[in-house]
């Protein structure tokens, strides 16, 4: 294993250092570690190229010289090999390191630490004087999210059991386009391949494991895809609620307008999800009355009637 590692490092060095394309024969002749018959050398080299590509190293093929036999040559361009973040200010270096720290004990710990080592290898100074004291942390980023993020970076379709509103687990297939952390929950957004529509899934509603289906690079994220557009911002219905003064703290935080009065304050707030808004109103009992829309008023009213009936 160590010999193979050594050969891969030597191959990387040689392909990086060369100004022109190196042919396979030159590689076999000059780079240490290629032994055996021609076939076994060839096999070794094919595997080595694959391995380096798996590490994200781009090997360029080219240099076909018409004057000689058309043997392909190989090289690695230093500009594609090296980290391309440029002109980082000390404050930016600090921000990057804080960004990596946010994954502590979470799904991407190893990757963010690896990224951080590369960044600190630039050897730049850090400067935290411009920053408040921060301790960022990504909450709830678990193995399921990790699987989904791996799928997102490798563009691999995933499959999982998902709890629907009726509490039943159903198998779903998703091409992940994006992720979102909202209201303390992680969401995956992407193409539900069976429904052929964009859907979002709350990660903690995934039952069991996330598994991958098929090969990597099996889809592309549409260039016009925007998470922000999924926000039902434009045509969100507005709830008008009467709330007792001093009550409904959470509703007040969500409200777009608050009109105070003696008996009841009048709040307007967007309804992103009717079922959620219904249960939020119910949570507040007689501290809240729905003025409009009728749909919400009816939902709350009939839920209350049912509650009274079953608790009679």
């Amino acid at each position: 294993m160590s010999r193979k590692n050594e050969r891969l490092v030597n191959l990387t060095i040689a392909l990086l250092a060369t100004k022109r394309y190196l042919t396979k024969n030159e590689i076999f002749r000059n780079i240490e570690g290629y032994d055996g018959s021609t076939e076994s050398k060839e096999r070794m080299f094919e595997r080595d190229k694959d391995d380096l590509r798996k590490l994200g190293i781009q090997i360029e093929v080219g240099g076909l010289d018409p004057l000689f036999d058309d043997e392909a040559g190989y090289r690695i361009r230093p500009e594609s090999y090296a980290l391309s973040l440029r002109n980082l200010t000390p404050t930016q270096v600090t921000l990057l390191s804080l960004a990596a720290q946010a994954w502590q004990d979470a799904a991407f710990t190893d990757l963010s630490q690896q990224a951080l080592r590369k960044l600190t290898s630039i050897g730049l100074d850090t400067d935290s004087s411009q920053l408040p004291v921060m301790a960022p942390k990504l909450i709830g980023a678990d193995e399921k999210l990790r699987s989904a993020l791996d799928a997102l970076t490798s563009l691999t379709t995933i499959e999982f059991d998902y709890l629907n509103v009726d509490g039943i687990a159903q198998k779903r297939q998703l091409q992940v386009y994006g992720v979102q952390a909202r209201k303390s929950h992680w969401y995956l957004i992407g193409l539900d391949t069976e429904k052929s529509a964009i859907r979002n899934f709350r990660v903690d509603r995934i039952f069991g494991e996330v598994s991958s289906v098929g090969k990597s690079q099996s889809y592309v994220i549409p260039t016009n895809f925007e998470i922000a557009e999924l926000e039902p911002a434009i045509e969100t219905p507005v709830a008008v609620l009467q709330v007792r003064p001093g009550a409904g703290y959470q509703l007040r935080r969500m409200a777009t307008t608050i009109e105070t009065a003696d008996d009841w304050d009048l709040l307007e707030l967007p309804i992103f999800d009717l079922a959620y808004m219904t249960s939020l109103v119910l949570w507040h009992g007689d501290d809240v009355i729905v003025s409009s829309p009728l749909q919400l008023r009816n939902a709350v009213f009939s839920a209350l009637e049912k509650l009274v009936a079953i608790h009679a």
Partner: protein
Amino acid sequence: MPKQETGLARTARLLDLVPYLTTHQGIAITELARTFNTTVKEITDDLNTLWMCGLPGYTPLELIDLEFESGFVSIRNAETLAAPRALDRAEALSIYMGLDLLAAELSGSSVSLAAEIANLQEQLRSHLISAPQVQIEASLRSEFRALILRTIRRRGWLEITYHSAANDLVTKRQVAPYELSQSGSHEYLQGYCDSAKAIRNFRADRIVEIAEIADQLWPSNQIAADQEAIEYEVRIHAASRQVREVLPQLSADSATATIQGFSASWISRAILSLGGQVEATGPSEIRAAVRARAKAALENYH
């Protein structure tokens, strides 16, 4: 979780060691092992391997020159590998998301920092094949978390302004924080609450404001979590996803269950919020409280 190291991970480490050593000449082997999250033995093996690598020719002129017998590592003649490798897509994504969180946790408090973060994200986007869409909302402001962690370390006190959903009240409490922990999707602050004279849990996203309190004595006589559990029984009329999420203790297919709660007010509000999907069957006080609340709310519409 550290995964089983593959041969390829080792190759990656070898390649990444060179630029790191180049900018950290004279680093102690022990520190190097810690930085690369591995053992001194592994790192020493790595250094021994690197020592055999170099440009074709492989004479001392071409080989990487490493010095590490003293326990401190220096490197020479490794210019070809001296630039740190580009971030791969997953690494770039991890940093990209971390930056998104930073921006959210700063919540617009600094325009210039927001611009620096946006600039970094722009640069990172080129490492991602098709810019994946990420949007992160912070559950607790970063300064608050830093203040809590610092206070835990120096055994100090905080005054937190907290919204209790069960009582629908925002109150100020003096708290000696013990721990900041995660459970499910939420982060919780656990501490000794001076108003309750007992240990309490506070959900981080319901903390409205935090301030440090100077010179209050660390509670010597910590009374254990004295909140009496209230046992109550329910009948499930519809085992919907919402029901399972509000009452995660429910078992999958049983129509009735006995659950423990900690606040009568929380229990009746929770049953109310489920709008008749769950019935409180006992004890009679809880059942009566649910009925009374529902009736009072219904009165509002008559």
